[in-house]
């Protein structure tokens, strides 16, 4: 289970960023144009979308792939 596709869809729906425009391995801040405020809001939207609670200690996540791995982990822990 990878949440990457769903995250790409969510970021498209919420911020109008096409999946092809945001390299999953690139910095969301530097290449995606998501500043710290937009990222905070995006994490909030992720929680709503997946019905999960994101851990606070991973605030230094920088790429969409890293985010997808974390979301996978949280979702797996929830279903376990």
């Amino acid at each position, binding site marked *: 289970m990878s949440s990457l596709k769903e995250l790409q869809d969510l970021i498209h729906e919420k911020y109008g*960023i096409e999946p092809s425009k945001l390299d999953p391995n690139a910095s969301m801040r530097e290449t995606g*144009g*998501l500043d710290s*405020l*937009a990222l905070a*809001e*995006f994490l*909030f939207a992720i929680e*709503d979308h997946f019905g999960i609670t994101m851990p606070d200690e991973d605030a230094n996540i920088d790429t969409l792939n890293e985010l997808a791995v974390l979301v996978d982990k949280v979702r797996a822990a929830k279903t376990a």
Partner: protein
Amino acid sequence: MKHEVCVTGLGVVAPHGDEPGALFQALLDGQSAIQPIFPELPKPAAAATVAFDETRWFTKLQLAGVDRVSQLAVAAADLALRDAGLAPNNDADPERVGIYAGCGMGGAAALEAAYRGNGRVSPLTIPAFMPNAPAAHVAMRQGVQGPVLTYSVACASSSVAIAEAAKAIERGEVDMAIAGGSEALIVPGVVLAWQAMQTLASFQPGEAAGAVRPFASDRSGFALGEGAAFLVLESAERARGRGARSYATLAGWGLGSDATHLTKPDAPGQARALRQALRQAGLQPRDVGYCNAHGTATRIGDVVERNALADVWGDDLGSLRVSSTKALHGHMLGAAGAIEALITVLALHRRQLPPNANCSEVDPACSLNLVTPHDTSAPNIEAAMSNSFAFGGTNSVLLFRRP
């Protein structure tokens, strides 16, 4: 050296649209933007709201944490700069430009969403709500690096902001100012609070549009409005230097406090502000042809304003034509002073006066030379003023002259 202050740009996002000429025409035609809202509330409510397309100004990403009150401000300020011929290519030194923005409440929608979120609160609620967010967003959008200031003085907020901007230009602290304000608090919680304050107009079903009747015998209060308006102010030297059109000169302003009561208006306090504005402009009362009144259509407020005008104008009161445009665009609170200043500037520029709508029978205690719908021409007008009198007791008067 004192610099003369010119109004070189006008921008508005109002219940009557975002084109100043169309707004002014709607007022001349007596078109009310007030309509029923929130039918789910226990008591009937009405307000003048803005049909705003935020995608004209923001990408979805840019909207993260930007409350409607800031969105309206960014749009109106951008329109003002475009009108002045300064956007997108502003030639001013960014450090010599200031933003002076009025806002009464801040991001009401963000706060309302926090209360109603059943514990789910957006992490951007605070930056969205903070009352200085509108000014900050305008600064980021326009690259303004001088003073970026917010004035929260209830119903006088943006009138005070414009006066403060004019002072900064007059003293030479900035070359250019984007001055005005925004308010967007038409959300159920805030409307309920205003209803509880007992200052809103009552109305029968189907009659919301005519609910606000300034200076009329049957007046019962105001309706809330939302929107934003900004003026571009420049020193006369700078405006002349770049060949800018000047709509008007901001020749005088009066700022003072009643220091008597938090919400009850006070004629002597208002008269002090009126005299101060006249004195600064070097004008006599008879020189002023039009007053855009504060005119909230409350039982007490209109009489007190009339008495203040009568005190200062004396035997010349009949020569002063008066109207309150709140009858048509509602009370925009923190943005009221700015939109009414903009309307006053247009009245002077076009030599036409917006009528005092919905006043079929003038209250004898409010006897003024009210502008009637069929007599709006003012071919000889040279000066006009806008009154803003706030809860908290602060009074602000802006006095404009033809350039």
